[in-house]
């Protein structure tokens, strides 16, 4: 029984932090968030070639390094801390795991090495204009054509980095199915005929989203087209665990920001952090941030083990960490007072990322309902 990161894992954290502090300072975040692409291709390339971050948790036989979800969680936590603008979560978490969960061995050999090297930017398109995060929201139908090819028509929303992705993993359903039946995965190239991509004006400018309109787009089935529901659920659980870790990096950062400001800012002749009104806010933030980290790390371990706890742990960590992050990000603005309300101050970047992450994959109420079902309430 041991809840500590190994020395190698701590070293990974230090390396990633050092890299991101150099490559993703606030000025870069602000520059990139104003662009349509939303990332710096040179930094993305360095991440892949020099640090091997994209390949980290992909199995060795598919061009990766074969580390676990625990290492992936560490990297995401560091990225969340500095709001790295990059398609990492979309490509390495959403798309790569979907492919791993559902793809055939040949498909994995074909698709994963590109994601691992960073040469391919991939994403997962599942949510639709209904805004549902589970299988009931998948209305897009796949129609089978000749030679095992399928045709997709419909609309996908909130597709992370969907505007720039080279490879889009699409979750659709076989024509005539409903509910959890007939859920299937397909791959589509980003420049496919019949695909119209529109970049969305997102509340959180640091993570790009797109609307994808499919009009008879030719698609290749990924894995079996018969029963993708289990793989879809698993992918969503892994995505929730990963996002929980990413969120805690941001949450810790805003807590640190608040504490520093509370020590520096003097009013009534004393640092405001000496007033219990502020001190107790910070104490509550610490409790929630530390607790969120405990949940996120435990969830990473369960995901690394791929054990039976994952569905429960994923739902509860997404619910808990979302609230912890948003609460910390909101309190950070309050503790900073007027300066925290300005565009120039970074507080709003975290505030918006926190709310956006809270909603993405389903809000805490949704995840608690999922949890209620999974524990048999």
């Amino acid at each position, binding site marked *: *029984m*041991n*809840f*500590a*990161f*190994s020395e190698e*894992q701590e070293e990974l954290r230090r390396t990633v932090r050092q890299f991101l502090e150099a490559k993703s300072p606030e000025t870069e975040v602000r520059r990139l968030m104003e662009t349509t692409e939303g990332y710096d291709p040179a930094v993305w390339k360095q991440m892949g070639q020099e640090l091997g971050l994209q390949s980290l948790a992909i199995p060795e036989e598919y061009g990766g390094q074969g580390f676990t979800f*625990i290492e992936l969680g560490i990297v995401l936590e560091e990225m969340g801390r500095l709001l790295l603008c990059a398609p990492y979560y979309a490509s390495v978490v959403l798309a790569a795991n979907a492919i791993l969960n559902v793809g055939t061995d040949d498909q994995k050999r074909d698709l994963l090495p590109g994601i691992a090297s960073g040469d391919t930017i991939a994403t997962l398109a599942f949510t639709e204009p209904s805004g549902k995060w589970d299988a009931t929201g998948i209305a897009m139908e796949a129609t089978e054509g000749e030679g095992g090819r399928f045709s997709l028509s419909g609309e996908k929303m909130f597709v992370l980095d969907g505007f720039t992705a080279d490879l889009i993993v699409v979750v659709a359903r076989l024509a005539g199915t409903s509910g959890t039946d007939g859920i299937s995965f397909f791959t589509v190239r980003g420049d496919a005929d019949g695909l119209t991509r529109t970049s969305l004006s997102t509340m959180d400018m640091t993570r790009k989203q797109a609307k994808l309109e499919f009009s008879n787009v030719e698609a290749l089935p990924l894995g079996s087209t018969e029963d993708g529901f289990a793989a879809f659920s698993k992918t969503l659980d892994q995505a929730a665990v990963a996002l929980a870790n990413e969120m805690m990096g941001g949450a810790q950062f805003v807590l640190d920001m608040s*504490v520093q400001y*509370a*020590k520096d800012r003097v009013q009534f002749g*004393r*640092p405001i*952090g*000496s*007033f*219990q009104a*502020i*001190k*107790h806010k*910070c*104490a*509550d933030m*610490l*409790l929630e941030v*530390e*607790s*969120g*980290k*405990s*949940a996120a*790390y*435990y969830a*990473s*371990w369960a995901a690394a083990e791929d054990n039976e706890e994952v569905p*429960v*742990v994923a*739902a*509860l960590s997404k*619910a*808990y960490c979302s609230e912890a992050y948003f609460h910390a990000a909101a309190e950070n603005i309050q503790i900073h007072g007027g300066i925290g309300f300005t565009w120039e101050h970074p507080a709003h970047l975290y505030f918006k990322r926190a709310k956006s992450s809270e909603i993405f994959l389903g809000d805490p*109420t949704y995840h*608690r*309902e999922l*949890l*209620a079902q999974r*524990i048999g*309430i």
Partner: protein
Amino acid sequence: MDFRDSPSEAAFRAEVRAWLGDHLTGDFAALGSGGGPADETGWDVRLEWERLLGRDRWVGVSWPLEYGGRGAGVAQQIVFNEEYARANAPARISFFGEGLFAPTLIQFGTDEQKQRFLPKIQAVEELWCQGFSEPNAGSDLANVQTRAALDGDEWVITGQKVWTTLAHRADWCFVVCRTDPESTSHHGLSYLLCPMHQDGVEVRPLRQLTGSSEFNEVFFDSARTAKENVLGPVGEGWKVAMATLGFERGTAFLSQQLAFEHELAHLIDVAKKNGARDDVAVRDELAGSYARLQVMRYNGLRMLTNLVQRGSLGPEASVGKLFWTTWHRDFGETAMKVLGTDALQILDDRNGAYDLDELHQTFMASRAETIYAGSSEIQRNIIGERVLGLPREPR
């Protein structure tokens, strides 16, 4: 990071499970895990059970072998607590002796003191109570005014303690006294060990909002204890008392989460039977309660890893205390929501006894938990000042 048992942990788990399987039968098993360390439910059966535990060295598992313990490390203690909770064994009654006093004694006591007191705690022949709070020393604990002075070979203690849990059951009290009459604040205090059964000690019960009277006032009027019954150096009682509070906020409650699992399972059961689980708001609260309870467990495991690596729990113990007391308080409110109008009635008040069922008991008793062992506000001060390094309030 690995949460599976090591081979030695697995072997220890099997041993605990086998012992509980053999001994937790009849009246002991029938009692269930209801009640708590500050609760007298099923007292006589629990006392008998506790002595059985002590006989086979399950009281004091963490103590060194030379004092009759098993020298169990942190992981083994968790395993023991997990198995104990899983078996739904009776709530422990040696909390103040085994949980608070014994670890303090092991840290600060002389060999003679350990030989004198530990075996009696293990045999459950001597129960302890905690003499810290006073009418004017609550959150401001350093304002202790109970005085003690040496008279020949004995300390003579005069003053008043309050909120003394189970003082009427206790044989001994660890009592923080001002031994330097010129001193103020946390200077000049000593940690004395005083027998309860003597003319100079009077225990008066305090009836709590739960209707029962586990808390007491304790009046010391020239109470006497031997000169050697001081733990740690004379005048340095504050440091010793802080260690006890550290255990109270930290390790003593690490197993709390496990008992809460039973309470939540019971509440979910009630919600299924009375249909409350179909209410969206209730479902959300129950699932939220479950989520936070699991987080409490992960926090506990993480804290224990730090404990193993650093050897002691620091001020972050306050995070654990704040978390569990808030959780339990909120749980009590969720319980009332689940009960709905059934919450308007308690188990049985026809004979005027004001008897509480388990859920009302939790709803009410949890209001003490956010106050004792340092109120939630004090815990937030500790977290703010000692974990986050925020400046102290000018005093």
